[in-house]
């Protein structure tokens, strides 16, 4: 129960930070961090899959509503939540279908390599899909690529910083 409240609070804080601050950041004119992804990254994998998709969709919708890009973040977040278990399985190096509470990018529980790759891969999925959906064309593709790369770099940097500054405490229930 405690875990649920912590998760909800984390979502609220990160969404407000995203909508109020990060969305207005435009480093060098094209780099915008997607800090709210951290809330999705830290969502426990034991949750029912359909609930995870719904949370991803709702989070994306809120971000969309404030950015006037209806559908973009909702689609990307839902897709990202769908791919997340496979990424974790890949990183864990086994085909175990059971997930534990520690299968999250938590410093101290997972090593830096795990946390970094997890963050990088999922952020990349989100940024590639969302930027392409937002652009909706392959014209001026060089710039689109630049935006995607810039967003990935900045997002991963910000998310890792926040992650390592505020360790979420994980109770090992097993």
């Amino acid at each position, binding site marked *: 129960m405690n875990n649920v409240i912590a998760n909800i609070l984390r979502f609220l804080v990160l969404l407000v930070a995203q909508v109020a601050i990060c969305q207005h950041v435009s480093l060098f004119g094209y780099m915008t961090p997607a800090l709210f992804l951290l809330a999705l990254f830290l969502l426990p994998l034991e949750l029912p899959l359909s609930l995870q998709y719904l949370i991803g969709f709702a989070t994306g919708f809120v971000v969309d509503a404030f950015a*006037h890009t209806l*559908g*973009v973040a909702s689609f990307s977040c839902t897709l990202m939540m769908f791919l997340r278990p496979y990424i974790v399985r890949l990183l864990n190096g086994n085909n175990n279908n059971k997930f534990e509470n520690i299968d999250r990018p938590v410093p101290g529980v997972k090593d830096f390599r795990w946390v970094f790759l997890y963050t990088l891969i999922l952020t990349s999925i989100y940024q590639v899909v969302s930027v392409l*959906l937002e652009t909706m064309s392959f014209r001026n593709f060089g710039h689109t690529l630049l935006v995607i790369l810039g967003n990935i770099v900045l997002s991963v940097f910000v998310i890792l910083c926040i992650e390592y500054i505020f360790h979420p405490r994980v109770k090992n229930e097993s």
Partner: protein
Amino acid sequence: MNNLIEFFKKAFHIIVLAVLLILSIVMLGKSLAFNDYRLSRAVQSIVGPIQKSGAGMIHRFRLGPENEALVQQNIELMREHENMFIEKEDTILTEMSLPDSINSRQVRLYDYTYAHVIFRTVDRSFNYMIVDKGSNDGITRDMAVLSPSGVAGVVTDVSPNFATVRPILHPESRISAVVTPANQNGTVIWEDNNPEVAYLEAIPQHSEINIGDSVFTNGYSNIFPKGLLIGTVKEVQVGNNASFLTIKVNLATHYMDIYTVYLVENLFKSELDTLKANFKHE
């Protein structure tokens, strides 16, 4: 049948995923369609107020520079007002007997600058204000001081960086005024230590003054341009002095929250002062 239920249980999350992805695509399509704003309008009606209050909060921190820009813009506009100029007949054109509108040229009589009040009193019987500009900024004695809402006072003393202003709230303050629509000239003075009320003197008893009539400067003093609001008539009494009315005037300037003031410079002041001095010597 059981198989079907089993299948649904297993595939439920896939169905949810498909529904959500399709919903996203539909929203995306709706927001891209140029003539269909229903969805984005509905979302905007919820998000809009939140964004507005957020933008308002951020805006509050930027009010300073914006205010300065608005003051500058105000001065530009005020400088073009007709009471800034005097009409002069052009002798060459008069000989060509052209219509009056072409026949005259406008000569700038007044110019504006602005300052901020850094100290002021309102509750004494001799009140004064200090503004943050002085002789280094071209401020001189006897410049008129206006607040955004009306006449505020006159510069009485100048140091290099600051200037003292005598507001209307001072027993020695005298401003020649005209009350409209009666069009009677009088003098605004200040007597009973009330920062909101002054008196309009020397209005003959026969004039028809109503409550709410506006009192403007009449431009006789060479300090104030013509037609600046001083206040509105609050009360009209038949005074002890049989020939004049006692008129209370609600001052237009709110001295309690005065900050930005405009200073008016008479560009021909020394010329006019010389004339006046000569007159006194006779």
